C-alpha cells in the first residue's frame, strides 16, 4: 500500500502510544490521575489536546477523558446567584444558556470567539484555561469576572482564583492528581456589566494579538465601586491589571478615568514580538481595547 505509507509519512502525524481512561466520577478521576505513572493529560473538549497529540507536541502515557462525569458537563446557578460552569461544558452550550448570557455577557462572548462552530461544539472553558495559552480568549473574561476554579485532588476540593491556574505558556499550577471540576462566577450585584474584546487581523477564527476583559459595578449614582481589568496575549500568562481597575473606582467612568485605565493597561504589558504583532503595537492596542471594553461594560452596567 504505497499510497497509505506515503500519506502517513507526509503527515508525520501518528500519535504516540498512550493509555486511555474515562472515569465516571470526580473521585475516580482523582484516583486515576493521582496513581498514574509518567506524563498524564486531561481530555475535556480535545480541540487543543488532539492537535498537540497529532503534532507530537505532547506525548502522554495516559489520557484521561473527564467528560463522563456529570458535574463536568453541567451549568448550574446557585441560590446566591453564582454560576457553576462544569469544566468540560462546550462553548455552544455556554452560549445557549440564557441566564448565564444575560448575567455575564462578556464571559459568554469571550468563549464564543474561540474557533469555528465545530470547535464550539467541543471546546470548553476548563480546557481553554488549563491549556494555558497566553492568548486564550475566554480567560481574560473569567479573570475580570473574579471567577474561581473548583479544583479536585487527592486532598479534596479547593477553590483557586482562575488567574492562578496558568503559570507560563502551556503550564499550570495544578498539582499531580488535581484537575479543574468547574469554574465559579460570583454573585452579581445590581448595576454590573462585563465585556471582552480582542484584536485579530481578520473577522473570525484567529488568535488574539491582544484581548481585554473588563468587569465593573456601579452604585445607584453611577459611581464605579469595583472594577477588574484583564489582558490576554500581552504576557506569558493572562494578566489581571489591578491598576487599570483601580483607575475606574470612585469615578463615573468618564474620559479622564478611561485614559488612566488605558495607560495602566499599556504599562502592564510584557509582550513578545511575533508574526501577529510587535511589542509596541500590542502595548498600544491593549490600552485602546481595555478602554473600549470598559465602555461596553459601563453601558451594560447602566442597563440593569
Amino acid at each position, binding site marked *: 500500500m504505497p499510497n497509505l505509507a506515503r500519506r502517513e509519512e507526509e503527515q508525520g502525524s501518528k500519535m504516540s*502510544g498512550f493509555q486511555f481512561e*474515562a472515569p465516571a466520577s470526580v473521585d475516580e478521576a482523582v484516583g486515576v490521575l493521582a496513581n498514574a505513572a509518567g506524563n498524564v493529560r486531561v481530555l475535556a473538549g480535545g480541540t487543543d489536546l*488532539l*492537535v498537540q497529540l*497529532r503534532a507530537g507536541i505532547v506525548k502522554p502515557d495516559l*489520557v484521561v477523558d473527564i467528560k463522563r462525569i456529570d458535574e463536568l458537563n453541567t451549568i448550574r446557578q446557585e441560590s446566591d446567584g453564582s454560576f457553576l460552569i462544569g469544566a468540560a461544558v462546550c462553548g455552544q452550550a455556554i452560549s445557549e444558556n440564557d441566564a448565564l448570557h444575560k448575567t455575564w455577557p462578556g464571559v459568554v462572548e469571550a468563549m464564543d470567539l474561540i*474557533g469555528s462552530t465545530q470547535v464550539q461544539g467541543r471546546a470548553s472553558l476548563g480546557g481553554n484555561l488549563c491549556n494555558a495559552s497566553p492568548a486564550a480568549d475566554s480567560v481574560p473574561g473569567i479573570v475580570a469576572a473574579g471567577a474561581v476554579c473548583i479544583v479536585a485532588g487527592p486532598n479534596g476540593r479547593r477553590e483557586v482564583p482562575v488567574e492562578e491556574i496558568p503559570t507560563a505558556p502551556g503550564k499550570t499550577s495544578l498539582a499531580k492528581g488535581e484537575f479543574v471540576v468547574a469554574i465559579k462566577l460570583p454573585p452579581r450585584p445590581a448595576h454590573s456589566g462585563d465585556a471582552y474584546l480582542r484584536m485579530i487581523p481578520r473577522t473570525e477564527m484567529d488568535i488574539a494579538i491582544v484581548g481585554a476583559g473588563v468587569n465593573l459595578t456601579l452604585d445607584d449614582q453611577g459611581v464605579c465601586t469595583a472594577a477588574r481589568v484583564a489582558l490576554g496575549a500581552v504576557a506569558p500568562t493572562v494578566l489581571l491589571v489591578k491598576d487599570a481597575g483601580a483607575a475606574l473606582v470612585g469615578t463615573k467612568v468618564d474620559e479622564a478615568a478611561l485614559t488612566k485605565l488605558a495607560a495602566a493597561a499599556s504599562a502592564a504589558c510584557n509582550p513578545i514580538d511575533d508574526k501577529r504583532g510587535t511589542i509596541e503595537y500590542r502595548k498600544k492596542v491593549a490600552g485602546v481595547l481595555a478602554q473600549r471594553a470598559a465602555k461596553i461594560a459601563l453601558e451594560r452596567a447602566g442597563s440593569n
Partner: protein
Amino acid sequence: MAKFHVTATVNGEEVEYLCDPQQTMLDVLRDELNLTGTKEGCSSGDCGACSVILDGRLVCSCLALGAELDGAKIETIEGMAEGDELHPLQQKFLEEAALQCGFCTPGFLVAAKNLLERNPDPTETEVRYWLAGNLCRCTGYDKIIRSVLDVAAEMRGS
C-alpha cells in the same frame, strides 16, 4: 495494547467497533466502519472536511478520539439522504453547482443541515459565520451560501 470496545449509534443504527486509544473518531468512521464520506483534510480542526454531528452538535471528527464515543449518537453524511432521495441541501448543491472537486462538500452539507435544524431562517451573515469552519479551496463560497439560503426558504415554505 488493549483495544477499546465501543458501542455507538451511527445514522440511527447501533454499531460496535474496536479501536486503539490513538484512533480518532475520523479514523474509526473511515477505517473501522467504512464510512468514507467523511473526509480527512487538515486533521487539525481547521478545515471542517471531517464534520459530523455528535450528540446533536457539529464537531470535527478529527478532534475526538474513537475511544470517547461509547454511547454516543453520531450522524454522518451517509445518513443524510433517505434511500435514493437526496436531502434538499444535497439536491440544491447539485442544482446550483455549489461544488467543484467535492472534497469539502460532505462537511458543508452536514454543517448546513445542523444549522437549518437549529435555525430554519438564518440570515446570510449567520450562514457565513456558521460555515466559517468549513473551507472550500475551489469555488469560493457564494454558491454554497446561496444554496443554503435557498433550501432554508424552500423548507420553511413547505
